[in-house]
Structures are given as structure tokens and as C-alpha cells.
């Protein structure tokens, strides 16, 4: 059976440049219990402030950029740091934790070299206005075409510019704003076969959670982080909804990022 699919020149270039991208499948069974995420999927991380959304994002990025023998995927990553929550020192600690756990035989000097080297594969855009963000998104497409090692694009956080864009003269609903952003991510992830991951504070566009993850207007993974901290003990929970399948994991956060608890 053959069907003729028409594609534009840009899509052709995107498809050809994306044929050899590394995959993020089986990234980490604690982060993605369903052995995902396959190329082209969108991951949303949500929760109250202080539940570890930015840490989760850093954890995913760290596992993508490390070499395979150090617990990673040897991929390149584009990161839009819109809320200044990315902290390079903490990120290095996370890389170190993963590298040491996956390759305990490697000596300290070698591990340090590996970590420093893989930092070259993380491209960070710092944007401070909607205009700069727009420019960066366009540059992202150029980057995706020229670098076929990029397998992951991350955004922290999705609503960062909402309150400068929603004005008295031009009001826009949070849900509409969210949908537009998501449609754009969807197009890029489909064209270039990359995974998109972003954070969303639960107070931003809370209505979108009613849309099931099987819907095209919705992310494929919705990871909801919940805090169970009390005065005596700290503990967090991650509820993953992957296209209707749900999973639960427990974790803690320390100076080395996320620490999953075995049940």
C-alpha cells in the first residue's frame, strides 16, 4: 500500500536532517516508566512552586547530554531559560551524580573531563522579552537543521512572558496562550523528530489539565509533582500521565538533584 505524502521544501530538509538523531527512549525508568519518550513527544512538568519542576527539567537534560557509557544518550539539547531558574552549579552536581552512578569505575579526573565535554552539547538561550524569545525560536530551527545530534528541546517555563503580552489593549486568555505555544512545539517536534519538555506552574492555565493527554492539543506526558513535606520529613511524588497510562514515583531533592526512592 502506498500513499503519496506531499511535503514542503523546509519539511524535506527537516526530515533529512532528522534521520540520524539519537533517541531518548529508555532515558530513565524512574523519569519515564513507560520506557519513553519516543521521538516527537511532548512532556509537560507541572506542580506548585517548590515541588521541583526545574530540577526535573535539569535531570532530563542531564541524562540526554551525557555519553551513553555514563548513563546518558549522547544527545545535544537546546534549552530556553526564560525564568532564570537554571543553575549551572546544581546542574554540574546532577551530571556528576548520574555519571558516577552509571560508571563507578571511571576515575575522578576522567569523569570530570567527560562532564565538561558534554556541556558543549547544551545550547542555552536566555530571553528577556517576547521579541527575543521569538528570535530564539527561529534560530532554534536553523540549529535543528544544522545539528542532527539535537534530540531534546526544553523550555522553562511556558508562561514566562504571559503578563507582558496580555495587556489591556490586547487581552489573551491563558488557555489560548498555552494552546498556541503547544501547537508550535508540536509542529517543531513533528518536523524534526525531537522531544520537547517544558515546565508549567500549576497556577498558569490550570484549565488545560482537563484535556486528556491523548488529545492532540495536549502534551503526551503530563508529570504532576506533589509535595508531601512535613516538619519531620521531606518527600515528593511524581504522577505521570502518559497518554492515558498513569504511573507514580516517589522522590526527594538534595544538592545532587532528584533522588528516586525505591518502593
Amino acid at each position: 500500500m502506498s500513499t503519496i505524502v506531499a511535503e514542503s521544501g523546509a519539511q524535506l530538509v527537516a526530515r533529512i536532517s532528522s534521520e540520524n538523531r539519537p533517541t531518548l527512549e529508555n532515558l530513565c525508568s524512574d523519569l519515564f516508566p513507560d520506557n519513553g519518550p519516543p521521538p516527537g513527544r511532548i512532556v509537560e512538568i507541572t506542580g506548585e512552586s517548590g515541588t521541583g519542576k526545574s530540577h526535573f527539567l535539569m535531570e532530563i537534560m542531564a541524562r540526554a547530554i551525557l555519553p551513553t557509557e555514563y548513563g546518558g544518550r549522547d544527545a545535544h539539547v537546546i534549552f530556553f531559560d526564560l525564568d532564570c531558574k537554571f543553575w549551572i552549579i546544581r546542574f554540574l552536581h546532577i551530571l556528576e551524580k548520574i555519571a558516577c552512578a552509571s560508571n563507578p569505575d571511571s576515575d575522578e579526573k576522567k569523569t570530570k573531563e567527560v562532564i565538561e565535554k558534554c556541556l558543549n552539547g547544551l545550547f542555552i538561550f536566555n530571553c528577556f522579552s517576547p521579541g527575543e524569545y521569538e528570535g530564539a525560536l527561529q534560530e532554534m530551527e536553523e540549529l535543528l537543521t544544522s545539528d542532527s545530534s539535537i534530540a531534546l528541546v526544553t523550555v522553562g517555563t511556558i508562561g514566562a512572558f504571559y503578563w507582558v503580552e496580555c495587556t489591556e489593549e490586547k487581552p489573551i486568555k491563558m488557555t489560548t496562550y498555552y494552546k498556541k505555544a503547544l501547537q508550535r512545539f508540536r509542529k517543531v517536534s513533528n518536523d524534526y523528530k525531537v522531544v520537547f519538555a517544558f515546565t508549567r506552574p500549576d497556577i498558569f492555565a490550570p484549565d488545560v489539565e482537563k484535556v486528556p493527554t491523548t488529545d492532540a492539543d495536549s502534551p503526551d506526558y503530563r508529570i504532576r509533582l506533589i509535595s508531601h513535606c512535613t516538619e519531620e520529613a521531606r518527600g515528593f511524588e511524581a504522577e505521570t500521565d502518559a497518554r492515558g497510562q498513569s504511573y507514580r514515583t516517589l522522590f526527594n531533592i538534595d544538592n545532587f538533584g532528584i533522588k528516586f526512592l525505591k518502593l
Partner: protein
Amino acid sequence: MLTKKSVLKNREVSYVSAYKLYQQTIQRPQIIPTGVKRIDELLDGGLQIGRIVEICGQPTSAKSQLSLSIAVNVASRKNIETIYVDTKHDLSGVVIRNMLRSRRYTENVIAETLQKIRVARIYSVEKLIELFENLDKRMTDKDNSLVIIIDSLPSLMYLHHGEAKFEGLNLLAESVLRMRKLVSRHQVAILVVNIITCGRKWTPVEKKKPEEMRLQKPSLGKHWQTVPCVRLLSKWIIDSHAVSFYNFANQMITGFEERKKLSYTSSLRMADKSK
């Protein structure tokens, strides 16, 4: 109007690799101790370059005291500048001088430290945005590290209460973007003083705290809630002449049993208020 052409033409942002960021980071100190030992413990060492820290609490819970102490401590260190943004017109040079005198500094050192604390009297958000903009333009890589203390942000925002729906929020969001730009492009750390208002809906991260805590939420609205990287809650402990500080991120708490320890000689003004 954003068009594809205008965006491409004015494109000044480009990416940096994390390696470059790492190289820049290790060249310069990243942590500025506040000089108040227990607060440093709460903050994992002190104020961090590139991050925004908030102190929130009810009136007279020693927020301004703490920020003033930090300003003085930071200013008496070498190679660090301080800008104290005074939005309430209640900063007094005499108080700072007395704080320094109580530490038995020589008059020379006192004069030097006083000179290093630059005070910006700002009474509108627009002016605050202007300040951030000017700093961003003027600062270079060779400049000293800079600590900006804003005491306090909500007093600027209350000017926009009851105005057209979005205007205040737009201004706040704009100033947040400027703050972020400043801290991530330069060697800057920001400390913002905020107040606590009572509300029923907001619940802090740990839900099993006493009832009173559940009823309090930081002022400035939902958007602001997600802005600071670290939020400290200061609390006045009634009858015991003590103040406690609580870090929402690592759930650490510290208490100052006697006000003097925190605020040195300038606790006089606070004692008057509490009577």
C-alpha cells in the same frame, strides 16, 4: 508589531553553550555571604549570583532589619557593591552608622562602608525599571559584584491598586524581566522584601503546618509567587522577643532568640513599634 522580518533584523540574542557558562561561572565568586551566620546557613552559604531571593513576612517581623544588616555586612566586604532601593523613604543614615559603630569600627572604616552603600530612593515601578535598565547598560564584566536590595517591592505596587485591570501586572512583569536580565547577564544578586497578606486559598508547600501559616500568602500576586528562586518567611514570635526565618525550598528554619543578635543596636526602632 512583531513580524518575522523585524525579529530577524533585530536578533541580538543567540545561544551560549553550557560549557561557556560554566567557564564564566568558575572565574568569579558565585556566593556572597550575608554575614548573618544563621541566614547564610538557611541560604546554603549566602546570596547567589544570578538568583533572586525574597524575604516575606508580616509588618515588624524584622524584614527590613535583616535586609539592612545584610546591606551593611556586604558593604563592609571588599570588591562588592551594594545598592539599597528604598521605596518607603525610611532609611536613615544614622541607623546605619550606629550599626557600624556598635561593631567598633574606626571612623575611617565607617565612612568607607557608608560610601559603598548606594541608596536609591524610588517611588514608582517605572523608575525601578529605569534603574535596572541603566545598570544593565552601564555594568561591564570587570565590575565588582553587586547586591541589590529592594525594600520593599509591594509598596510600589500598591500605587496601582484599583487601576485598569492589567496595568499593574504588566509593570510588575516588566520589572521581573529586567531583574532576570540583570542577574543573568552581570555579576548581580537581588534580595526583595515582600509582605505577607492573609488569604484562604494559598497553601505553602508543606500543608501540615499550623493553621496560621496556611492563611498567609506572599503579596504581589500569583505571577510573582513563581519568580524568586528562594523565599524566606520571617515570623515574629509574640511574647518571646524573637524572630524566626523559614526557607520554603529546603524547609530549614532558624530563630533569633534575642532581637539584638540580628539587628544590633538598631533594634530600638522596632521595639518601639511592638509596644
